[in-house]
């Protein structure tokens, strides 16, 4: 048990350090973007969050397939944890996205295909969490949310494509990709990307531990009630 604790602290420390590094890079080291000025710095966080949200939802699909194949509780726990953390990340992406939109192009919502897909993703996985909440027997909950986890993610490429076409029909003022990447921005982007991935890992494991201990508690209660 001691070794796991040590590794856990190491992970949290690493996440913290990397976060600080990312902060330093994006706020100080990276140059201010010519057209948008300071506000562009939020891009690094926005991107870090967005990519990790997609990663989280992809891993939910992987965990769902894992559960359907092995029917072991651990996969289901990780699916739930990843979905929850994924939704938190997506919320952050949406909010920072719209604030940035407000600052740069003074519209709250830019209908950029990536941003809109993240919005749709946010709805899909809210549905996922609602589905989980509405089922009591954990085995049916695990099985059905696994199925929805797969259907949800398989749908993402089609959503992205249709929104991209949809947006090209309604040309919108500026899209996020319009920025030129100054080479010095790259470390900031990488650092924040890595920092948030580690954060994703830490949160998921923490959330998974909570479910596991809740499980242990529940089985102890059952045992306690029966004898």
């Amino acid at each position, binding site marked *: 048990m001691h070794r796991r604790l040590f590794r856990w602290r190491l992970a949290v420390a690493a996440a913290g350090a990397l976060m600080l590094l990312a902060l330093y890079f994006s706020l100080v080291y990276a140059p201010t973007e010519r057209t948008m000025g300071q506000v562009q710095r939020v891009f690094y966080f926005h991107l870090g969050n967005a990519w990790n949200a997609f990663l989280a939802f992809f891993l939910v699909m992987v965990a769902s397939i894992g559960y359907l194949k092995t*029917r*072991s*509780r651990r996969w289901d726990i990780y699916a739930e944890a990843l979905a929850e953390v994924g939704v938190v990340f997506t919320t952050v992406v949406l909010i920072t996205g719209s604030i940035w939109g407000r600052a740069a192009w003074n519209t709250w919502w830019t209908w950029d295909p990536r941003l809109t897909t993240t919005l749709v993703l946010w709805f899909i996985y809210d549905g996922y969490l609602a589905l989980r909440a509405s089922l009591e027997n*954990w*085995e049916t909950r*695990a099985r059905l949310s696994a199925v929805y986890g797969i259907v949800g993610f398989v749908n993402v490429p089609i959503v992205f494509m249709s929104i991209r076409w949809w947006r090209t029909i309604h040309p919108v003022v500026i899209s996020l990709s319009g920025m030129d990447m100054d080479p010095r921005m790259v470390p900031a982007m990488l650092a924040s990307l890595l920092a948030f991935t580690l954060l994703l890992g830490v949160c998921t494991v923490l959330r998974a531990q909570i479910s596991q201990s809740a*499980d242990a508690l529940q*089985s102890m209660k059952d045992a306690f009630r029966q004898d």
Partner: protein
Amino acid sequence: MPEIGTISLAAALAAALYAAATFGMAAWRRSEELARRARWASVAVAALETLASLILFYLLGTSDFSVRYVAEYTSRNLPPFYRLVAFWGGQAGSLLLWSWILSLLGAVAAYQRFPGQPAMGFAASSVAFAVDVFFLLILNAVTPPFARLSPVPPDGAGLNPLLQNPGMFIHPLTLYVGYVAFAIPFSFAFGALATGNAGRPVWVQAVRSWTLFAWLFLTVGIVYGAQWAYVELGWGGYWGWDPVENASLMPWLTATAFLHSIMAQERRGMYKAWNVILVALTFLLSIFGTYLTRSGILSSVHAFQDSALGQWFFYFLAAATLASIVLIAARWQQLQGEQELESYASKEAGFLFSNLLLMAMAFAVILGTLYPLITRWLGQGEITVGPPFFNQVVVPLGLALVLLMGLCPFLGWRRTNGGQFKESFLAPALVGVVVAVGLALAGIRIPGALVAFAIVAFVLSSLAAELWREASRQALKNGEGVLRALGRLLARERRRYGGHLVHVGVAVMIIGMTGIGFFQVHATQSVQAGQAITVGGYRFAYNGLLEKRQPGRDVVMADLEVSDRQGRPVASLRPEKVFYPDGQNSTEVAIHGNLARDLYVILAGWQADGTTTFQIYVNPLVQWMWIGEYLLVVGTLLALWPGRRPRLQGSGADGAAAGSGGDDGGPAPAWPEERAEVAELMVEARDLSKRIGERLILQGISLQVPRGQFVALLGPNGAGKSTLLRVLSLLSPPSAGTLRIAGQDPLEAGDSLRRRLALLSHNTFLYGDLSARENLYLYGRLYGVENLQARIVQVLERVHLTLFQMDPVRVFSRGMQQRLAIARILLLSPDLVFLDEPYTGLDLEAAASLNSILAELKAQGKTLFLITHSFEAGLELADQVAVLVRGRLVYQAPSSGWSVEQYRNVYLQKAGSVK
């Protein structure tokens, strides 16, 4: 004459359609007679295609320019040999070649016999001819080779000079035969899937030899193509990662993977699903390959520009992919491997890793080739990926594969014992290291080259060691000289050592590739007559230009004297540039090579004032590649030669596994397996258990219920009674243990077994909105009950519901609904009935009528399984009683004629104590 060609092609299309259809019917109805007629049709198709091809050859030979194809690809002064080669110079001709070869191979495949499973052969031939129909359709509709040309031109356009080279005869022909021949294993895989014996060894044998045949041609095509490019195209390299070259490499990689993993299936019955997927993938990639070359969506030196044809290929490709996915998914159950991978240090694991590496290489090649397409689609414009990408990705994977090739001979089947591995592995590894150190000392510093040479040394020595060890063992066994034993061994184990020779060939080719890859020296210089260029330690003295007139072209040559470091003359080279009357020109490369290196000079150009520019390459060890190639071909021929068939053991090492081993030679079972044996034990369970997440609901349930018995199962709430019922009635699979119903394994028998059992529970499964008749009618249809209407009337009579048969069930009382549920059981007349607390909510009179019906069912010899926790009703009929507490069978005994009291005591004593 061309008209006869068109007619014969149209007739061939009709015959191919007929052949595909009749073969299909023959497979469906398993009739030998239909198959004979279909075989006749297949011969007709082959004959008609040959006729059409001969006519085209004749037209090309006599340059009859009234036919458009001839006018486009030949001209009067084209030497006769190249007129024949022009047959596959253009679009229509190469498609005719395709379909001609396919029809020939298809006819051969049609006559192949499969004693155990004739249906599979028929289905395979029908697929083969269906593919041929596709090609013939294009030949007749889209690109007719015999199309007329109204104003007959005086002279044709002539063959592209690039193709006027002897290589042009071998390279495309072998490549096409390779591509087309993969259609046969594909149809066998399809045929096996369709007739449901994809799991059985009979399929493996047929597909393996055909794939090896196709693989041989494709390999020769690819390697000869590389050689032709090196000699003819004159840019100093042999492999440009050109989209068309990649298109031929992709199926080659998957086919190589298949050839290896098929052995695992043959010996250990493993990777069945994987093999089927590989075969389908190989054929689809070869079609995809031709699609790439034909539709010109990717720019390449070979491509034919004709997008209309691309459309057709695309639809065919999409249809074939969809069909294979659906069929593989439908047969997934039967494709489960019998043996699991026991240890990672075993031959099967070796096959697994080699497959993974090959698939990774294939994926990298596909990705690289399609990259411009993908980027265009994503809207970032066309970014083409050059050789550096491929070299960085594919070459290391290739080296890893070759390393694995060296390791495999040491791994035993199932598991390798450490000792034997260590002592036979040491020597070759040592050799490898010694070679690497030696080369490093000799001044070669490039790590990549060192690794490659070390691996090659390791592989060659490991194969030699293995051969030597085997030969000496044979010599010891029958006391003869090692060399004679070696000779006999090679003759007898042809297939195995053919494979080894192929591996040697590959290793030798790696030497060549490393040589030219890492140590190529290249210089481009312009010199005046009399000056010299020194490249890679050789001095090229340029003595001036010569000009020579030849019929139909005039040639400009440069004269070069080559001498090595010590000044000794080595060779005199004459690179040329050839000019044709119609303005086209081609460069002829001058090569002087020996085993150590090739001197490779290209005459780039010259100015008026006499300065001539040369491109000079020194390519060390490049000849070894061609030697390796020939070894490879010989090895494959050795393996392909129809030697003794390996003993067809059951697909499991431990003799006939229940699944496929047994019924191979037996009479061909009716296609949808309907084995109606009467089993003595109706339900036979051995330590069944059911786990939901971490909780074990049922543990160690062992139960034997002979036919015609009435079993009563008692137990407190939450003991897992209804879960056991669900498992026994095949509604949910057990987590562990074995279960056989009516003597059959539920997995094998599938749905047909469920037709013979039914479930009566306290909730009635009836639809409120449907009337009583309609409910019975629905279930009658789903269970396939014969003369349904009469049975419904009779059954409704039996439960006195005829009066209410038209009313919706939701107006029925609880008792009436229960009686209708019983009527449903009577209608389906199952052999095995599960009763889940049927008496709940029944008044005395209804319970009595239920009892009488159950007694009647028991009298008819049905087996009944009653689950109840109340003692009032149903127990008097029981022949056996069992008590289930907390997921375990705590008591089991015959109990015919017990009184209710006895049941109660047994229950209290068993279930009560635990409480």
